[in-house]
């Protein structure tokens, strides 16, 4: 599960914009395998947390209705250039990944 997250954090006018792209199948559990006719088991991210210098700025709960390879963008105040932003996700199978970046 290496490098599943791409993240950009850029500050402009005191507001930091974070953009992330996670590679994940986001399988709903409602789709059938066309060859076998069996349901493909659900596999989706349930929680995404973003920290700025160790403080939570965003805590997201996702269901299977979030698109495959999820994209997310949000903004927060109170940061400066060079600050650390950490993003982590956990899915319904207990897999997880995290990444740390600096605000540019």
């Amino acid at each position, binding site marked *: 599960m290496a490098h599943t997250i791409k993240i950009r954090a850029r500050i402009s006018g005191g*507001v930091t914009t974070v953009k992330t792209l996670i590679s994940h199948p*986001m399988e*709903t559990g*409602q*789709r*059938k395998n*066309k060859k076998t006719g069996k349901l493909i088991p659900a596999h989706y991210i*349930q*929680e995404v*947390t973003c920290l*700025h210098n160790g*403080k*939570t*700025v*965003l*805590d*997201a*709960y*996702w*269901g*299977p*209705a*979030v*698109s*495959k390879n*999820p*994209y*997310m*963008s*949000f*903004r*927060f*105040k*109170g*940061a400066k250039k060079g600050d650390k932003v950490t993003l982590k996700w*956990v899915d319904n199978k*207990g897999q*997880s990944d995290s990444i740390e970046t600096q605000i540019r």
Partner: protein
Amino acid sequence: MTNMKRRTFLKGSLAVGALGVAIGTGLVTPRVVLAAWPKDAFKATTVNDALKSLLGSSALMGSSKVKLKAPDIAENGAVVPVSVTASIDGVDSITILAEKNLNPLAASFKLGPGTEPYISTRIKMGKTSSVIAVVKAGGKLYSTGKQVKVTIGGCGG
């Protein structure tokens, strides 16, 4: 020197032992992060049930202060870009639902104190339906909806 190492080793194994016991007895759950995931809300089959379960109420106030950006027609229901902005102070959370999905709740975002009321993401939609953005601020729920026409569903095969 060898004796010193032996001391550290012993201490280390003792600590690990204690942690092992804690996990075994359920004092420390390895998946603490997931404990909060609102399963009932995500399994709910109507917008009302999902909101009640997630936010404690389904009394929505339509508000022009909540702006929802979504396409009029989504060619591919598997990828519908949605963004929500609110011009309300003290927003606690932003929730996105697709009314006619099997489980309407798509995603909910809890905002920190310095986080602006803005979220942009992409969701799946099974068929043509309203997308609803619910913004919770000061214990009240403000919402805006928009009809999105889906030409190819994104939830089936």
